[in-house]
């Protein structure tokens, strides 16, 4: 059985067909041969018996008239009858009347005078038949007829040979038919196996098997194709996931690397200005330090403090952007004025940095439209980042900025410098977080690597796009465009409302609401040299109480205070004393928070750390 199991399907089908065919044919042939043999013998016997009867009937006449010669003449007629080899006529007294034997069989048969003494040689091949001579119920004697059965045996043998030849012929036909028929069953299976092998070798699940007929094999094909489709789909999904996972992994590794780099860099960036601040602060405390160096030390401390402040602002901005907490509030914005303010600001910054070899230009065409609907706060932030970036990476040359083009769809700004430039390989990476064009081993410039990432995000929040053209060693040009949404009004006042405060000739009563004593001391030192009376409230409740007993011109209101916070205190004070000008001083630099303080009733705000110039400007400007 194991050996049959190892035969191919083709061989099994051929073997099955041949087995059934040959088995059936052999059984049928044996049956037919048996039937034919019996039938032939029966026919032979009946024929010989009939011959005996006919001859017996023929000899009635001669025997009646005792005509032996005529009787013998009749017996001689067996010459013309096949198989009969001898015949004898016996009378009623069982005495031989006459007989006739074919010459070639005379040695085999001897008819005695008595019927019972007849001897026959080779009994196996000679058979006796008896015919009674009867007419009109009168018995005249008996005919004994002997026939040779060799001929019918030869006939049966010939028939058997014919059958064998027939079986052989049918066997060949059956084999040929089996060869053809097996293809119908085995070929589709072989095709299926071939496709399976191809799939296994090439791992190609897009292959399919096709069949036009409708049978069980077609159902198998369809099921196989469905399975392949499912595997292909699964593989495709898996490949997509793998690609996504690989990308995510690469990104995560990159992010991890960047974060590690960021932390290292940030630690350095934080510690470097902190080192200057603490170091020079310590020197100022030493008695040996000459008084003439105080100012330069303090300028270094101030510069380092500003550096730290910018760093903190950047970190806070990127955190808010990633948390989705940046709010965009579009309003009519005078872009020319905004650019001019930036020019003034950066000329001041350039001066502070002593970057005298850098020329700063604003290319501002005042003839073109000046009002667009956008977020001025974020637009300013974008331009400041780009200008700050240009100032950082430019040692000699010039920095120019302005509006490059205004179309119906968009306004395009640019900031170009003659700085160190960026290689083409680094251009696609420059807007990523924590990317810096320098590396740890070749550090040239400070910064957290967040400025351009923040800038790009802000541009996108304004529905714009930013791009860069740069050549290493020659300079860079950053361009960004924002939608040109037409403003209805022609002119507005600045978003930060300029307020007219008290006359500087009048001594002002100022209340400082601040829970931190150092902050109070700083403000006190900042203001006492002016013509002011200063009071201190350590929380919102004290501020309210002091307002009830004393008149104040200004309140510098901290927001986060114990007992009663700045919001609530402002509301209460403004409800009672609406003429008191309240300037919020807060470390919450977010736009939402600043709007919140204005909603609470504050007339203006200033963000910590408080810039002295700004504060004085707000208090003593017109």
């Amino acid at each position, binding site marked *: 059985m194991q050996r049959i199991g190892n035969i191919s399907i083709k061989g099994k089908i051929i073997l099955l067909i041949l087995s059934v065919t040959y088995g059936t044919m052999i059984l049928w042939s044996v049956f037919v041969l048996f039937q034919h043999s019996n039938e032939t013998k029966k026919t032979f016997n009946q024929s010989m018996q009939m011959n005996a009867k006919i001859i017996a009937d023929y000899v*009635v*006449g*001669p025997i*009646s008239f*005792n005509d032996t010669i*005529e009787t013998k003449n009749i017996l001689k007629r067996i010459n013309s009858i096949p198989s009969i080899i001898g015949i004898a006529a016996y*009378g009623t007294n069982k005495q031989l*009347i*006459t007989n006739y034997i074919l010459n070639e069989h005379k040695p085999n048969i001897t008819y005695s005078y008595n019927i019972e003494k007849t001897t026959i040689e080779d009994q196996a091949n000679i058979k006796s038949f008896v015919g009674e001579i009867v007419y009109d119920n009168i018995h005249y004697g008996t005919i004994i007829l002997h026939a040779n059965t060799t001929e019918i045996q030869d006939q049966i043998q010939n028939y058997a040979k014919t059958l064998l030849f027939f079986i052989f012929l049918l066997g060949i036909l059956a084999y040929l038919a089996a060869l053809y028929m097996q293809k119908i069953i085995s070929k589709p299976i072989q095709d299926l196996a071939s496709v399976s092998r191809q799939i296994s070798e090439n791992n190609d699940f897009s292959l399919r098997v096709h069949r036009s007929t409708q049978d069980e094999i077609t159902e198998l094909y369809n099921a196989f194709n469905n399975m392949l489709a499912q595997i292909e789909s699964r593989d495709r999904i898996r490949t997509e996931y793998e690609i996504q996972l690989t990308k995510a992994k690469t990104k995560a590794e990159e992010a991890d690397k960047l974060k590690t780099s960021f932390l290292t860099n940030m630690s350095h960036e934080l510690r470097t200005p902190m080192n200057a601040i603490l170091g020079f602060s310590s020197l100022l405390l030493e008695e040996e330090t000459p008084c003439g160096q105080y100012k330069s030390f303090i300028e270094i401390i101030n510069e380092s403090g500003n550096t730290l402040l910018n760093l903190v602002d950047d970190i806070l901005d990127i955190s808010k952007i990633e948390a989705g907490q940046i709010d965009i509030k579009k309003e009519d914005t005078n872009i020319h004025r905004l650019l001019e303010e930036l020019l003034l600001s950066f000329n001041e910054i350039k001066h502070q940095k002593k970057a005298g070899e850098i020329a700063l230009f604003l290319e501002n065409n005042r003839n073109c439209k000046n009002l667009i609907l956008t977020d001025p706060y974020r637009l300013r932030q974008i331009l400041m980042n780009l200008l700050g970036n240009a100032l950082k990476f430019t040692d000699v040359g010039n920095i120019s900025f302005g509006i490059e083009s205004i179309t119906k769809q968009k306004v395009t700004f640019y900031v170009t410098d003659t700085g160190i430039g960026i290689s083409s390989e680094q251009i696609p990476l420059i807007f990523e977080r924590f990317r810096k064009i320098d590396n740890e081993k070749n550090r040239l410039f400070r910064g957290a690597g967040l400025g351009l990432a923040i800038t790009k995000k802000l541009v996108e929040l304004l529905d714009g796009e930013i791009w860069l053209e740069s050549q290493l060693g020659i300079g860079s040009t950053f361009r960004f465009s924002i939608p040109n949404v037409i403003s209805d009004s022609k002119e507005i006042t600045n978003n930060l409302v300029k307020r007219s405060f008290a006359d500087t000739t009048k001594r002002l009563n100022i209340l400082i609401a601040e829970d931190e004593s150092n902050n109070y001391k700083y403000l006190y030192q900042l203001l006492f040299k002016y013509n002011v009376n200063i009071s201190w409230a350590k929380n919102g409740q004290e501020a309210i109480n002091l307002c009830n007993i004393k008149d104040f011109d200004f309140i510098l209101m901290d927001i986060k205070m114990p007992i009663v916070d700045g919001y609530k205190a402002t509301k209460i004070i403004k409800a009672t004393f609406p003429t008191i000008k309240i300037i919020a001083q807060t470390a919450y630099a977010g736009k939402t928070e600043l709007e919140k303080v204005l909603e609470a009733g504050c007339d203006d705000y200033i963000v910590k750390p408080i810039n002295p110039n700004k504060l004085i400007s707000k208090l003593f400007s017109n």
Partner: protein
Amino acid sequence: MFLIAICTFLTITMLPDNNNPIDETSLKVAYIERFTRFVEWPQDSSNEFIIQIIGDTELYDAMQAKFKTHSIKNKKTSVINSSEIDENNLPQLLIIGNINKIENYILKTANKPILTISNETSMCEKGVMINLFIHEKRLRFEVNEQALRNSKLYVNYRLMQMAMRIIYPVNNQNATNR
């Protein structure tokens, strides 16, 4: 030689039971008795089979002796010797030994179921149905088939088969010699 011996033996067996020497008359009686076996007469109500012999007393005696106890067609056999044919009691078998008036006898039995037998040469040509004669020392017989047909007698083929000659064959063939 062997066949002659057999024939001799057979002839002996054909002799009457009393073992009389073989003679022509006895053979004729035996032949006549065989003739009656192969001839069928029309049905009648008679219980008697009448054999009439004309002119041959020797044959009459032999016939008397043979048919005293032997019936024909299951009928009692009566052998008579008379030269006249009784119209009211016609015989079934008429043996004509006297040929002088044979034409008269033929006329009287013409178209009647009477088997006529003679034992003289050329009697069949004159109208006798069966004629016995010696040929090459053997008793043989000839048959007038037309006369048999006219008499309404049925003659078995075996009798025709054994006849040496058939005179006036019904199928208009020439007389056959065996």
